[in-house]
């Protein structure tokens, strides 16, 4: 029995970070109607930044976030301006391939710069843990989980209560009407995309002390993020959080009982089942999956 609880707990913790990765992806889709296939590479970039800040400046990963997250926001602004905005009205195939090519491009730039060696951030407190009854709880994982959930809640509050948040939600609902009531839709797109990058950047910072990084790390993670986003309902932040936690637990159990190699199978089966049974996910708007870019 204890082992089940322990598995559930570790799955829940990693699921928090999955949720944070997926929140960025689902936010960008909900507003821009663009799936950013390079989302995973932004995670990798953030992890590399954290690694180098840790090893050259001796900066603790949690402190490094103060530098990494704003830089990722900037990177998002630049990407939106150069690649996303010029293709927003282009045929769907162009949008898919621009972000896909960007993903290949970034992956190989990282490969040329840093080779495919794994690099890890080893903090002094990485193995610190405490015990509740039969459960061992890692301080680091608990802190990363709490930070991820806090950020997801923070972004939800931002969307609900700030002026910019309302503008983003209005644009997500109907971009034409949003423009009619005086919302600067281009600015909303830029900020939304940059926010997505900043969120995945924060996820990268939190992942750094837990997982080693190489140029393919993000590509491995992105498949999970897709499953989560579809399960939660495209564009739904609450859905992404719930689905992220669920998939974390599912993964934790499946890799214990079936082995790590079967992980991808389990994702795929989940993915196909969701698509077949309920393509709108938990909280997705009905018709989101068949929605046109208009």
């Amino acid at each position, binding site marked *: 029995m204890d082992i089940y609880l322990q598995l559930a707990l570790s799955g829940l913790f990693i699921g928090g970070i999955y949720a944070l990765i997926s929140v960025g992806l689902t936010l960008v889709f909900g507003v821009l109607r663009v*799936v950013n296939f390079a989302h995973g590479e932004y995670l990798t970039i953030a992890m590399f930044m954290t690694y180098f800040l840790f090893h050259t400046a001796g900066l603790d990963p949690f402190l490094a976030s103060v530098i990494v997250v704003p830089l990722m926001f900037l990177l998002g602004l630049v990407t939106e301006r150069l690649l996303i905005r010029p293709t927003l009205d282009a045929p769907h195939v*162009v949008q898919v391939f621009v972000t896909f090519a960007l993903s290949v491009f970034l992956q190989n730039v990282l490969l040329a710069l840093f080779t495919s060696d794994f690099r890890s951030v080893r903090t002094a407190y990485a193995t610190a843990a405490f015990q509740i009854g039969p459960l061992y709880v890692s301080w680091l994982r608990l802190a990363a989980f709490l930070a991820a959930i806090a950020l997801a809640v923070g972004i939800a509050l931002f969307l609900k209560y700030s002026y910019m948040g309302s503008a983003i939600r209005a644009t997500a609902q109907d971009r034409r009407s949003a423009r009619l009531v005086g919302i600067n839709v281009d600015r909303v797109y830029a900020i939304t995309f940059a926010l997505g990058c900043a969120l995945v950047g924060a996820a990268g910072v939190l992942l750094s002390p837990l997982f080693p990084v190489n140029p393919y790390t993000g590509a491995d993670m992105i*498949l999970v993020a*897709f499953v989560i986003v579809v399960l939660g309902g495209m564009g739904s932040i609450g859905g992404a959080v719930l689905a992220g936690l669920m998939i974390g637990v599912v993964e934790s159990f499946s890799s214990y009982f079936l082995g790590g190699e079967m992980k991808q199978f389990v994702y795929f089966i989940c993915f196909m089942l969701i698509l077949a049974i309920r393509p709108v996910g938990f909280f997705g708007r009905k018709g989101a999956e*068949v929605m046109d870019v208009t």
Partner: protein
Amino acid sequence: MSPPAPTIAGTLWRPALGFAALALLPLVFREPFTLGMVTLSFIGAASSLAWNLSGGYAGQLSLGHAAFFGIGAYASTLLFLKAGISPLIGMWVGAAISAVSAAALGAITMRLKGSFFVMSTLAFGAVVHITAVNLRDVTGGSSGLAIPLQPSLGNLVFADKLAYAYVALGLVAAYYVLTRALAASKIGYALVAFRENDDAARALGIRTLPVRIGIFALSAAMISLCGTLHAQYFLYIDPDSVMSLNLSLNLALMAIVGGLGTAHGPIIGAMLVTAVSFAMQAYLGNQISGLTQIAYSGIVIAVLLAAPAGLGPALGRLVQRRLAWQR
């Protein structure tokens, strides 16, 4: 005066001329390196034509077609190695497996549009790739399978590499004709109508779901045959070379560069893309890992931003403008 009505001869002389030119290529480029380039561009053209039926005409953008390519390569190779069955038969077994799995996948995912469909095919491709890597007992895992060099027509192995070029060209011609025939048929019009505006198409009473699933399966079977040919040409296959995501991307890319949803686009695109990638390999080499891919993806982004409808139409416009200017 109205322009003369197009006659059969009038519409066919251009493709006939094009294919005559293509048939000369293997004879002109007889050096092993350049002949390899020509052969691979033919295999690429045939594969991309297959992809284009579903991805271009029906607008079902698949990034999992490498899985069907790989199924073709593995089915014929395994049947030959384990049971001694000729690839001439094995290729049809592969095509049948591909068609059935495509139909099953399509039945679940064809309701989805846009990025959702892309993601589902992506996941399918990834799973087939992982299966091939992990089923070491059957597929040899990452170390791959080698086909013994026993040249004979029955083995579909040729001593002279020139033969492969012409077999591949035959496949290109067959797929081109099939594409033209389908595009001119009621099915072709239904697919395009659905791609352009599905609500309007539905309102007109066009029911495309079974047709789209059928075309998806046909496209999978067609690309599966290309996979067999690829295996016979290299006499070696491994999961990374015949079912990687990069392969799926390349097929789509060829069609996009040449002009999506046209019969000649994939052929032009395959020529351009293969030539560029060979040139980059020759000049950039492997000095720094990933350099070729960096240049490649950089070019793709530039092309997409500059000519979203593909280079084929863009070049055509350029030529027309020049002609108009000269007059």
